[in-house]
């Protein structure tokens, strides 16, 4: 039957061999055929492949090197996989690598970083979300000025404020302590986080807020019962921004803490840049990977939510 139709319109059959369905329709019908190996696809996937290799190659080298022993590294072939896999560099980087006088590895820095990051992230997000909510929904007198000042604050280079903050921390007795650094991180996270939360809350339908007010809910009830449950995506975005930002911070860590309270990044720098003795590339690579593991895990766990939060705006009730 189909064959007959093709014979009746030979040129049509040549153009679109899959165009006729069982119903005997002549000419293109149904889904348009798409070729897997079109020029377009080859170009797109080829580019993606090259770019992926470009970014993954250094990671590969790091992982491979961290699993080799020093003799093997001295052969100089950095791309070859390890002949004999050893986890000793990882153990050494974590628990016995020396920085200055301490020889307890990165573990101390890791726990310092945890003790800095967790309260900083919690405090900065808690305060900034309330700020953003108040700015978006309550429009108090001077709100515009307050917001402008806050946003301008985001553009002041950190270097300008380094020394004044040292003095402030010294005066309030927090200089060199973990809590001093927590305070600094909380304050410096404020502008960008407030902006983030303000824009998110402003994108929620205003009528929800009005409805809650008619229902008799006050400032905190609306925040906790109405706004918070609708804001998971933006909280995930804020957590990712803050955890990676604070975890990766080096400048504030090195300026505002002492060797005992150095965060992981500062300690990593001290291990990698140690000038005495042999350069232990495998330990350095393992230490670097260990330090980068936390942000990496965060990205992997929350990648989907992150994208949803960034693209948020249309929340339907």
């Amino acid at each position, binding site marked *: 039957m189909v064959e007959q139709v093709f014979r009746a319109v030979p040129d049509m059959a040549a153009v679109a061999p899959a165009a006729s369905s069982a119903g005997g329709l002549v000419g293109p019908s149904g889904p348009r055929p798409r070729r897997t190996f079109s020029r377009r696809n080859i170009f797109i996937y080829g580019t993606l492949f090259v770019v992926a290799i470009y970014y993954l190659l250094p990671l590969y080298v790091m992982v491979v090197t961290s699993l080799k022993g020093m003799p093997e590294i001295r052969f100089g072939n950095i791309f070859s996989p390890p002949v004999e896999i050893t986890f000793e560099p990882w153990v050494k980087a974590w628990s016995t690598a020396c920085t200055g006088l301490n020889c307890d590895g990165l573990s101390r820095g890791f726990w310092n970083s945890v003790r800095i990051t967790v309260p900083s992230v919690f405090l900065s997000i808690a305060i900034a979300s309330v700020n953003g909510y108040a700015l978006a929904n309550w429009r108090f007198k001077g709100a515009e000025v307050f917001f402008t000042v806050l946003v301008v604050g985001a553009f002041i280079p950190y270097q300008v404020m380094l020394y004044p903050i040292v003095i402030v921390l010294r005066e309030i007795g927090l200089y060199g302590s973990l809590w001093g650094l927590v305070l600094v991180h909380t304050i410096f996270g404020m502008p960008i986080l407030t902006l983030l939360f303000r824009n998110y809350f402003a994108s929620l*339908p205003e*009528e*929800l807020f*009005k*409805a*809650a*007010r*008619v*229902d*008799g*809910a006050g400032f905190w*009830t609306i925040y906790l*019962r*109405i706004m918070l*449950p*609708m804001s998971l995506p933006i909280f995930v975005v804020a957590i990712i921004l803050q955890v990676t930002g604070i975890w990766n911070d080096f400048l504030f860590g090195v300026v505002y803490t002492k060797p005992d309270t150095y965060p992981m990044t500062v300690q990593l720098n001290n291990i990698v840049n140690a000038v005495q003795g042999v350069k232990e590339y495998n330990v350095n690579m393992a230490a670097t990977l260990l330090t980068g593991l936390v942000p990496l895990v965060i990205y992997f766990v929350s990648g989907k939510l992150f994208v949803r939060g960034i693209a948020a705006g249309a*929340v*339907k*009730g």
Partner: protein
Amino acid sequence: MTSVVVKDVSLSFGAYDVLKELNLDVPEGEFLVLLGPSGCGKSTLLNCIAGLLDVSDGQIFIKGKNVTWEEPKDRGIGMVFQSYALYPQMTVEGNLSFGLKTAGMAKDEIARRIARAAEILQIEPLLKRKPAALSGGQRQRVAIGRALVRDVDVFLFDEPLSNLDAKLRSELRVEIKRLHQKLANTMIYVTHDQIEAMTLADRIAVMRGGVIQQLDAPQVIYNRPVNRFVAGFLGSPGMNFLDGEIEGGAEPAFAIAGAKIPLDRYGFDAVAAPGKAVLGIRPEHIALGDVARAMPFSADAGVELVEPMGSDTLVWTKLGGQGFAFRVEAERHLASGDQLRIGFDPARASLFDGQSGNRI
């Protein structure tokens, strides 16, 4: 007894006056519709009554109490929004009970009120669902329920049906009217839909530019609009407007190109001064054929365009060189090019001043 009184209320955002010295008295149990084009201040006025916006000047009374500085929850109002504004993370039951829980009401009383509202609105099977799992009509019913459980004196509706499709809209319109008959609460209802206004209202307040143009029963507003704006805003298809001149003297008449419409039967509001004016006549007040010949005014007209609408048909023609539409029953089959006699009684028309647009 008056339920809601708005006294000299003004509201400005910077230099822009949204409401200008507005006065409004709503008697107990009345269904008042605020009608106007977008940006006329009708929603703003409703928000002021609800207490969601602070007024720049003036006072608002609800049940004889000055509530100008009161919080929304203390005003004895319930509000229904256009976008439903249901709390998405709560079930229907949670939505209905939120306000009551916030007010610290006893559990059994909350359950009793939810059961009553659910029964009135027929949403009992939906109580455990989240808003996302409801259709538009169901959501709006829940939103009305949220106002209902609060057992308030005044219901405020802010374009509650505008997000629904035409069929649902007409269904819910009837339900709202039924609800009003059952509860007999005061209801203030904002809409830009003149059919909603005509069908629901005890009185309509037509607004433009922050000022109430006319406040009266729907029939009065429809038949005796105070100005050209009100005349044009109500009615679908809209009123015909003919530009012309009033000729005074012993037999006053309205002159358009090639015709004179006698005005001796027209009930003038003001003294008819000769000069430019606009005559408005609704499409359904036009008669045809022999009936038209019996009217005080009639003229020959050629059919230009026919719009069949099912229940009736709208026919476009020209009168005195100006576009003119009239309505005929659907059974009468007209085609463009047909010639016929049309006529109307000027007593049913409205005359507006050419300059101010006010009724004369």
